[in-house]
């Protein structure tokens, strides 16, 4: 893909880590979910994380905005280290957008209100300006005509696009996607992936947990394979799919690409 190789060279120029994870461990009670994660994400880099369920991939990206707390190691996002300091956590969360598997829109608010909530209360943007921004992003995810409906009146694919727009309204520096298409009916997956591809083309830094290997091939700079709480393999999509080095990666790919 032409646009991608351009982006890759652009990355070389602008080497600057926006996320650094250093020897990070996480336990759920006795269960050791993440075992020494090391990861550095550059600005404008797009990473796809795949792996079998229970491998810790969701937990990993949820640690990045502290929806889960890590117990050992360091996570530094945009120059701020994640500690128990709640002010820092809120600052980081405002800079890191997150899209969930089950959308998690606020059902008691209209689409427009869903989008303006963060900017108005966290960024202290005047309401009118926040609404203009919201309409701009709704336009972008091709859903502006639904602005005054409630989430319950939209289809799954539309809801997920609203969720993406809601994150974008905060002008985040990084976007995290936690299996954004897993809860969707098959015919709606494409409309969400299309929006994500457009976002990628604009140079958004993205970390995507997904099983959509087509998306990984066309959009990612790097594909990570996780298993049993570790990053087993990390490579460019071309190498990753053509010559997987690890046995476990081969097994996983053989199961997922029929």
């Amino acid at each position, binding site marked *: 893909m032409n646009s991608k190789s351009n982006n890759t060279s652009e990355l070389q120029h602008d080497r600057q880590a926006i996320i650094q994870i250093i020897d990070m461990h996480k336990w759920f009670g006795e269960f050791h979910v993440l075992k020494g994660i090391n990861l550095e994400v550059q600005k404008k880099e797009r990473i796809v994380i795949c792996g079998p369920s229970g491998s810790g991939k969701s937990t990993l990206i949820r640690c990045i905005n502290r929806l889960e707390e890590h117990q050992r190691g360091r996570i530094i996002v945009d120059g701020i280290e994640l500690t128990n300091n709640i002010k820092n956590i*809120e600052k980081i969360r405002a800079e890191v957008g*997150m899209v969930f598997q089950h959308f998690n829109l606020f059902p008691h608010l*209209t689409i427009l209100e869903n989008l303006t*909530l963060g900017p108005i209360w*966290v960024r202290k943007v005047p309401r009118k300006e926040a609404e203009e921004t919201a309409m701009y992003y709704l336009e972008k995810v091709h859903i502006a005509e639904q602005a005054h409906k409630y989430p319950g009146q939209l289809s799954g694919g539309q809801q997920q696009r609203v969720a993406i727009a809601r994150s974008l309204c905060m002008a985040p520096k990084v976007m995290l996607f936690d299996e954004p298409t897993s809860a969707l009916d098959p015919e709606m997956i494409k409309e969400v992936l299309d929006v994500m591809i457009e976002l990628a083309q604009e140079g958004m830094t993205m970390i995507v947990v997904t099983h959509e290997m087509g998306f990984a091939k066309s959009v990612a700079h790097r594909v990570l394979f996780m298993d049993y709480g570790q990053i087993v393999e990390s490579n460019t999509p071309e190498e990753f799919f053509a010559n997987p080095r690890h046995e476990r990666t081969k097994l996983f790919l053989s199961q997922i690409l029929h």
Partner: protein
Amino acid sequence: MAYPEVQDKAEDLKPPVIQVGVIGWIRTNLFNGWLSSLLTLVSLYILAKTVPPFFRWAFLDAAWNTAGEACRASQGACWSVVTKNLRFIIFGFYPYHLHWRPLLAMIMLFVLLFLSRERSNWKPWLLYSWLIGLGAMGLLMRGGILGLEPVESSQWGGLPLTLLLSVFGLTAAYPLGVILALGRRSRMPAIRYLCVVYIELIRGVPLISLLFMASIIFPLFLPEGITINKILRAQVAIILFTAAYIAEVVRGGLQAMPKGQYEAAESLGLNYYQTMRLVILPQALKIVIPPTVSILISAFKDTSLVVIIALFDVLKTTQSVLSNPEWMGFSREAYIFLALLYFLGCFSMSNYSRKLEKELSAGEL
């Protein structure tokens, strides 16, 4: 093999006549099978036996505005017990020539409540009206300035007292209950245990004993010379009691909220208070409207328990009328009137809650 032909769009047919309209309704609701038919007939028989005699007693043969003697002679209901003593039932021992003051206060209250019904009116001016209105009502009841004759609160009674205890009780107990519910789910152990202990202690004690404590035991702990108004003490007891129950209902609503809602709010960078105020509570409180209204209704009725600490609410003033020899024996009529009064209050609350629920869920699925 040929496929059966499918029309582009099948036409809509009307449903069979027997299932719709008046006949259909009667069939499905009244005579749906032999058991239902039998029950319908039995009910009709009972209604025919009871309604006409009651109607004759309550309306046709009733004495509406006569002296007690004339009442005794008549066959029907003696509504005179209410009409002749209305001012005492409503206002209690409030000085007779000053009854216009509590009346005006009650009218102000009703106007404010009526204005608050419409959510489109929930704007700053309504809040200011309430603040000014409550001040004015207090002024009217107490007097003492602006040339108004002072009236001791020990003389307050009847309906104004009931309304005072209820309106303040419910409006103060609700936010307190919400705070307790949030506290009980707090991550800070000290706050959590404080709330648990409070809720469990209060719920473990009947309201009557709380009222006794407030009126008899509490003053013993005060230094000599300091007294706290009896109505205020009862009021506080009612608020504390109701809040504990509301807290548990609200906690139920909070627990029904999916974790994803907290996570979505937090991932936008909203802090705890914003998350609660903007995302969680609006949804959780809406879910628990029905049980909350149950609690508010029973709290409204429970205000009648203040008779045991010798406050003259509207129930007690009615009873006092019945102890007057002229009106002795007409308790049926007096209590029917009282029941109607309470019913009006409770029914408008539940009616309003249904309206609110409907409005709040507009557009949501």
